[in-house]
């Protein structure tokens, strides 16, 4: 097994876990969103790694080139990036409104305020 050849996938796993940990462990909502972004980005890397064909050139039609990388995962990830941006903007908009309503973006403080009601 060529461990170095799989370096992309190791990066994916590390990023995924870092993002996931941030989402779970941080009480600050903005940091949660950042964690969520890192988590999603790791999946983008995973898809792009899938598209690589060994010895393949960029998927642009060029005379004399026979082997191309697979462009489909890149296109899929463009869509997924758009989805990710939409999610992030919605999350940030919610955080702004949460800050207006509660005066804080700390999950623990928000929880305490809800308990008091």
């Amino acid at each position, binding site marked *: 097994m060529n461990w170095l050849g799989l370096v992309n996938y190791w990066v994916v796993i590390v990023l995924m876990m870092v993002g*996931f940990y941030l*989402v779970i462990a941080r009480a600050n*909502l903005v940091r*949660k969103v950042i964690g*969520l972004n890192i*988590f*999603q980005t790791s*999946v983008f890397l*995973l*898809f792009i790694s*899938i598209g690589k064909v060994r010895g393949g050139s960029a998927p642009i039609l060029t005379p004399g080139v026979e082997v191309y990388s697979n462009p489909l*995962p890149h296109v*899929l990830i463009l*869509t*997924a990036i758009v*989805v990710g941006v*939409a*999610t992030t903007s*919605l*999350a940030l908009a*919610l*955080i702004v*409104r*949460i800050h207006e*309503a*509660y005066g804080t973006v700390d999950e623990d403080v*928000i929880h305490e305020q*809800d308990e008091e009601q």
Partner: protein
Amino acid sequence: MISAHLPILQVAVPLILAPLCSLFRSPRIAWSIALAASAWSLVCALLLLATVLDDGPLLYAVGGWEPPWGIALNIDVLAAFVLVLVGLVAVVVATWARRSVESEIDARQASLFYTAYLLCLTGLLGIVATGDAFNLFVFLEISSLSSYAMIAMGRDRRALTASFQYLVMGTIGATFILIGVGLLYMMTGTLNMADLAARLPAIAGTTTVRAAFAFLTVGISLKIALMPLHLWLPNAYAFAPSMASAFLAATATKVALYVLLRFFFTVFGFEFSFSTMNLDLVLLPFSLLAIVSASLVAIFQNNVKRILAYSSVAQIGYMTLGVSLTNVSGLTATVVHLFNHALMKGALFLALGCVAYRLGSVDIRHLGGLGKSMPWTMAAFVAGGLSLIGVPLTAGFVSKWYLIAGALERGWWPVAVLVLLTSLLAVVYVWRVVETAYFKRATGAAPAEAPASLLLPTLALAGANLYFGIETSLSVGVAARVANTLLGGTP
């Protein structure tokens, strides 16, 4: 001419009308557009169901690009059945919505609320219609993102945190689904579900396919809100605007359950999902946990919307329990309950929306005397509640009947006993509401009965619970056919 393009038109029309809806400032015009789009999707769904029942599955290539290059829409009996369900709920809820949205949502935001609703409808219809695994993820995110927006428009500030929590968990779930789809693409080189199904058996033993299976299981379970991944659901349903609660409770988790059936039966195949990966033994403990613990928690809630939300988590347990029985009766129970539960939760949340419209509260301590002051609303609530319990002659009885038959067929009689016992828990939490409404004195001034525009759709849906409890040939007939097809038998 148009009828050949129904599979895409039923998705495209709400999608095109959504931005149009946001252009109007008048809530009334926006509402009319939302209602028209809902009615259109119901008509399309009914036509599709009729076609599919007679002529077999429909395959539609979007834009004329044949699969595997283009995106295929694949409408089989199960898909058409779920489309009809979503369309039906959409029409009833949209008809009901006008007065309720007027009272709960700022007039300047109402058209945006309807826009979010239309996008959510588009997403749900798209998930059901599509035959492409990646396209399914995109529609899933369309419906999820718009439902986060709808939930955040609730009046209580806790709606904001509920929506944020749902957003985080929903995004993790969707990303897990995306990873699963990516791994499948890596192994097969296709995203088309029919092609995936054809190519997967040859490589079923590889770790990558197993990992894809695991990621999809967790991701879809998050979307279904299967215990213990249900944490987003109770607050989201409790603090959302009444219309959003009713619509999402009746459709969103049902469509997620459809995704589960689609992936595990159509794409992975029964053999791999249940014999190799033992999905039935994975689902069984979580289903039972959901049924018992969510029912118990529901009993101790004071916010009636939260009672219903926890009851939803329990009912989802019944549906996944049906899947884990892996026989025709169990799967029939799942599909029938998918339909019936949408009817009962729709009716209950609409009735509760009427109460919220008059009282401004859905706290159980404020409901005293409503049996006298709002008799029709409470009658609808009781009908929905009886159906939820599974009393004979209501829709809920039919699904429980098949579920128990399935459990006995599998030889799991303790499960059958448990289903009966947990129905008693449903009696307790429904009775708490009924007792307060009919036998306790009013705390304040008696409210008037809900206006007809709210009352009629509520009563229609409550009536549907009784109708489909007696006339079962449509729901059970279609469900049995679907169950047979999914399990590989002849329809």
